[in-house]
């Protein structure tokens, strides 16, 4: 599982049926790569979260029919990034 910081919510009203209605979040990885994930735990902006990728992401989203390859699995209680300047704003 990879670790990301939640950047912003993603609004996508015109989406495929298979995407369901779960909120989408834009995540920034430790190396700065930007990805989009389904978010069943409703992480807030700036939270550090860990995600699940590949086929397990669909189970993590709660329904194997959901079209996702990345799902937020949980919010990390206390994460101090090693050297990144984007420290967690609420700590």
């Amino acid at each position, binding site marked *: *599982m*990879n*670790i990301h910081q939640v950047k912003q919510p993603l609004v996508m009203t015109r989406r495929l049926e298979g995407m369901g209605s779960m909120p989408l979040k834009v995540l920034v990885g*430790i*190396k700065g790569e930007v990805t989009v994930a389904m978010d*069943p*735990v409703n*992480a807030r902006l700036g939270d550090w979260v*860990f995600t*699940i*990728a*590949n*086929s*397990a*992401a669909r*189970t*993590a989203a*709660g329904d194997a029919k959901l079209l996702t390859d990345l*799902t*937020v*699995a*949980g*919010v*990390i*209680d*206390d994460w101090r990034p*090693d050297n990144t300047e984007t420290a967690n704003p609420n700590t």
Partner: protein
Amino acid sequence: MKIFQVERTLVSTNRIAEMEHKPLLVVREREGGTPMVAIDPVGCKPGDWVVCVGSSAARDATGVKGFPSDLTIVGIIDHWEG
């Protein structure tokens, strides 16, 4: 599979129910490498060098068929210097 070193336990109170109470560990491929999170069915302590499996095998390696994981520790290496 890849070799990782265990750094510390990861605590996540607000997480999806499907993850049950499986222990999570922060692991790195080498000092200063990108930290990743792995499920630990073996019972490792910080500093251990371990082998992790990914993709769909990681799901069954947790002991629960179809568990939502994409990185699971499968064993502790006896001798390994990073």
